């Protein structure tokens, strides 16, 4: 694809992306609305005095029809106003801003390690295809993938933090400034890494095995192109398209699916904010997060598609 073609592709996808984000928000809104109970009920908790619930509902303006609430909320968006939380009355923007830092830090760190580790393992296995190393990498990644995160978390915490006391077991009390306590990040990042590394390396391996067996790889080898170069610049790009898709999905997962890790290590990130907001039926907060996730997903998937298009240039010219 030429530069021009790529540009129009991206522009079109971004336009579509706006529509997708709206769809995400509507979907999330509809689902949260359809959930049993609302913010008033959630707030009332185990004191569900109907009169009190009615009063709370009124105080939160929940008695207004849904389209008015949604409309008001949407009207604020162009000004960058995500609305205010029902439960606390604080601006949603602040919720997102507070939670974004830690989550982004975790995601970025994990990603920075994931890419080399995932690709490295995948390439390593593919390189020794069918031999012991490959068997080992393949089965271990699969087995690790089959171990649930919490179990891995428990294991790592018990050994590294509690028994050996090398690392702090949680990030309790460190607030959002996690960078100041790098040791507290090690375990969460390890746990976060464990599964995506497995899935990524398996996909990379699969693609690499095919690519390394191709005539063009043989040709490059024949011509004395160094082994590493054949692997990384010749074979890898051809194995990359599915891996890039997986990676985009992983990033997305990292940003919103870190819930387990955030809870396990007490990191006040977006996952925690989201869980609490859903539990409290704090619709504006949920919607605000939906916007963030929607935009992120659109951008990341677009990125993955661009990568896929660049790496499989032929794909653009199917008859």
């Amino acid at each position, binding site marked *: 694809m030429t530069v021009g073609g790529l540009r129009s592709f991206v522009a079109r996808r971004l336009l579509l992306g706006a529509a997708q984000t709206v769809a995400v928000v509507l979907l999330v809104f509809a689902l949260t609305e359809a959930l049993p*109970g609302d913010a008033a009920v959630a707030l009332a908790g185990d004191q569900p005095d109907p009169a009190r619930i009615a009063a709370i509902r009124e105080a939160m303006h929940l008695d207004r029809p849904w389209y008015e609430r949604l409309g008001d909320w949407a009207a604020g968006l162009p000004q960058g106003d995500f609305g205010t939380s029902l439960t606390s009355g604080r601006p949603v923007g602040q919720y997102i801003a507070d939670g974004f830092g830690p989550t982004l830090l975790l995601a970025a760190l994990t990603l920075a390690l994931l890419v080399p580790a995932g690709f490295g393992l995948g390439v390593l296995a593919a390189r020794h295809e069918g031999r012991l190393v490959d068997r080992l990498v393949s089965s271990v990644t699969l087995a690790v993938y089959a171990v649930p995160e919490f179990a891995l978390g428990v294991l790592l915490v018990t050994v590294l933090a509690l028994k050996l006391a090398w690392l702090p077991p*949680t990030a309790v*009390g460190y607030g959002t400034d996690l960078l100041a306590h790098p040791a507290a990040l090690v375990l969460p990042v390890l746990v976060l890494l464990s599964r995506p590394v497995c899935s990524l390396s398996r996909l990379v391996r699969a693609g690499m095995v095919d690519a390394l067996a191709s005539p063009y790889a043989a040709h490059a080898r024949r011509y004395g192109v160094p082994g590493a170069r054949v692997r990384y610049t010749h074979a890898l790009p051809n194995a990359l398209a599915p891996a890039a898709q997986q990676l985009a999905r992983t990033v997305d997962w990292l940003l919103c699916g870190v819930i387990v890790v955030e809870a396990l290590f007490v990191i006040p990130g977006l996952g925690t904010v989201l869980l609490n907001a859903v539990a409290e039926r704090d619709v504006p907060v949920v919607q605000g997060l939906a916007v963030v996730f929607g935009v992120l997903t659109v951008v990341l998937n677009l990125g993955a598609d661009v990568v896929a298009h660049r790496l499989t240039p032929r794909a653009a010219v199917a008859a």
Partner: protein
Amino acid sequence: GGGTDDKADSGSGGTPKRGGRLRAAFAGGGASETLDPHLANLFADVARAKALYDKLADYGADLSAEPRLATQWESNKTLDRWQVTLREATFHDGSPVTAKDVLYSYRRIVDPEQTFRAKASLEPLDLDASRATGERSIEFVLKRPTAEFPNILAAFGAYIVPENATGTDFGRKPIGSGPFRFVSFAPGRSAVFHRYDDYWEGAPHLDELEFVVANEESARVNALLGGQVEYAHELNPTTARAHEGKGQIEIVRLRNSAMQAFCMKTDRAPFDDKRVREAFFLIADRKELVDGALSGAGVVGNDLFGKGYEYYADGLPQREQDLDRARALLKQAGAEKLKVTLDTSAVAAGFTEAAGIFRDQAAKAGVTIDVKMGSKDSYWSDILDNGTLCCYRSGAMPIEAHISQRLLTDSTTNATKWRHKDFDALYEQAQSTRDRTERAAVYERMQRRLYTEGGFLIWGFADWIIGTARTVKGVETKAPANTLDWARFDKVWLA
């Protein structure tokens, strides 16, 4: 359950030492938390409110009201006017706690525009008619005779704030009369308080107190084990078993903290027939429920609320499983091959487990129970009017409060739909009885009735489990959750 009542009493060892910072981990409410004591809802909220504020009275270990900011209360003959005297205490800004502050606080709580939690508890007060009779004395006028007036002063969330304190003050710099002063607060993450030297009950031992939020139980335990906190609230029985007596941390079990029950709607089939209710009482194998659902951390119940509390009718025989009689009763009621749906949800520890266990027990009596998982966020309101059978639990409160909130015709959260004029009358009688023993007799009659045909199948009382570092001393081990001495950090010190 396997208890360690005597040895867990880590508190009274040695002389208190001053200084230090204690970090306490609680499950919290996320980024929406506030320090407004009248909004306090979760245990974390209450613990923080308790550090910053005081109530006029609070509950002792048997859930009877003990004086706090109030030094004494006197009623008239008809029990509808109460004279309360305040002690000499000051807020953190140095100003004295006065009758005006008290009236302001109570009026704020019942403000019709607002929806503060204690509103219902303060309902018997006629605050328009009540007035300050002096700097530190108040005359409360009540809408009806109320023998348990002190319970109102001790009500959940009835904290005293300075006159004219508003919502924004609580957000920025809350001022109370409690043992600790405000330092900083990050919602959903941490709150730091400092010792208030002029506290009326004597300054706390600790210099500083930090509340941190950790929703996941394992995180609280790990933080405790790793020395990141010194106090972890609300642990699993299994965790407790794993660490009890290992010397790493101390486990404190607060007995009788949480009533565990199944709740039958007495106004609809099949539970409108009291024989069916009794059959269900007899189906439950309470030991198995306590062992299975509470992992043994608790004691069996006798279908009555408030074991160990003031007025508890402990003379009634302990109910045991009797499947034959249960079957016979069901047959009499024409309810053989009964099918019921049991609502449950992951809203409280042990709920889903108890539901599963009870389902299996009922099956042995020929009753088919279909366990239905509900949303945990709206569970309490869902089960209030819907369904026929559900899992239920309650924190500690006086038996009187339990009755008034849940068992009277006009109770707001009457989950068993127990509506009986004669029962209401008994309650009124109790409330207008001055003499304590006579009152106790009335309560006993009411409880007897509930024991034979009530809607609450109360199968156990769960311990509330707390873990502390070994250096932490002075943690009260007898106080059920929600009472005065629970989460009371002014009496705690670091050895």
